[in-house]
């Protein structure tokens, strides 16, 4: 199982009829069990890339090959829950095959046990995100896509949720693709960091992290983070394949 992405260009027409280049070239591949993280400035075309990779957007130049018929778990930037269905129903509708034991385990890890019968309108953003995460993991995805899962949460909450995501990713052999603008999150959750340029997006660097996620110490994380920050600040837009 392998995800191969080679997007040579993506443009769109604005309502005013102007053509905008969103992606100028992005090629990478991910193996099962590998978590890739796309890191780039806001508005650089990361979400567009995710939409192309998940098959929602076919209007682009290039090629994306997903494992045939792969189950996809997608956590959108906004939770995109069905407001007229309870938390439990939201998860169950997306993952009808998930049994009670699995749902109970997911709700336990994501601290949703008390909220199973609530409607999404009654939840805070942090909780709604958790429901979206539960939904994505409940389908036992072969391809997991997380679009800024920690954005607009306070630092403490984001940290906790990041640890919960790490727990859920542990022991599942899926291809994971995460988008974030936070280098720290990228280093803690990813196995490979793909640095993107400002729009139109190009991949500036492809940085593998060799130490397994669970074995990374704080010192190592800090070192990798510093290295990435240096590249982001130092790079003048030159592609830098590693």
């Amino acid at each position, binding site marked *: 199982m392998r995800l191969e992405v080679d997007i040579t260009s993506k443009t769109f027409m604005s309502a005013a009829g102007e053509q905008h280049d969103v992606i100028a070239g992005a090629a990478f591949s991910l193996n099962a069990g590998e978590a890739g993280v796309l890191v780039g400035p806001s508005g650089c075309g990361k979400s567009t890339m995710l939409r192309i990779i998940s*098959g*929602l957007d076919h209007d682009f130049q290039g090629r994306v090959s997903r494992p045939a018929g792969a189950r*996809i778990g997608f956590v959108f930037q906004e939770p*995109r829950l*069905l407001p007229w269905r309870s938390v439990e129903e939201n998860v169950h509708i*997306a993952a009808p095959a998930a049994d009670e034991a699995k749902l109970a385990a997911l709700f336990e890890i994501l601290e949703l046990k008390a909220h199973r019968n609530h409607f999404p*309108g009654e939840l805070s953003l942090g909780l709604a995100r958790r429901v979206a995460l539960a939904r994505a993991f409940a389908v036992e995805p072969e391809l997991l896509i997380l679009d800024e899962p920690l954005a607009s949460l306070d630092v403490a909450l984001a940290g906790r949720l990041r640890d919960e995501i790490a727990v859920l990713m542990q022991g599942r052999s899926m291809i994971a693709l995460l988008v974030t603008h936070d280098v720290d999150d990228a280093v803690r959750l990813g196995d490979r960091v793909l640095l993107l340029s400002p729009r139109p997006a190009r991949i500036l660097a492809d940085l593998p992290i060799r130490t397994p996620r669970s074995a990374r110490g704080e010192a190592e994380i800090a070192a990798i983070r510093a290295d990435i920050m240096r590249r982001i600040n130092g790079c003048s837009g030159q592609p830098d394949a590693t």
Partner: protein
Amino acid sequence: MARLLSFVVFLAIWWIAALFAGDAKLPPPDAVLAVMIAEARSGDLFLHLGATLARVTLAFTLAMALGTAIGYMMGRVRLADRLGDPWLILLLNLPALVVIVLAYIWAGLTEVAAIAAIAINKLPTAVVTLREGARALDAALDEMASVFALPRWSRFRHVVLPQLSPYVAAAARSGLSLVWKIVLVAELLGRPNGVGFEIGVAFQLFDIPLLLAYSLSFAAIVLLIETLLVQPFEARASRWRPRAA
């Protein structure tokens, strides 16, 4: 409680107005009630109310089903919208009377003609409302359903239908009141029974108590259906909203 009060006020106004207008123009409530009871005893009241109710049910169901399907199509498929729009505008603005008279001329004074004419009158408003609903479907949720590969039925039931239900409720509400109005005209013009027919008879005889007896029984049925069917449906459809407006 408030409803009872407003009913009492209505009766009081009627009574006072009857005192001023005189029996010939406006009989007092008790006279009308007496006619109502007499008609109910003979069974005529129920026969005519039943006939009208059956026509309303059939025409309403037909128009809602067709209108929902066509409206959804027109909201989702551009070509369908282009093709259907001129017809829709024509039907929307065609007077009910024209449709009814034409239906009777073409299909004879039959039940089918009456029900079809009523349904055709209600159809375009249902189409317009549901088209708006289909256009307003949330693309974000649509994408979610695509990514998670929801089966067709599950997608319809959990994603599309709840979004359409306020529009269905609105179409049902406005459609029902339209059907109530038109059914009497259709009956007056070409059916041998029903509330509309009885009102026609009362008109020819200038029998105001009879006219009011049927009109008010009819109004009572409408109110009953609103409170027992339409409003509970609306409340259920919007129960997920934190505070229904």
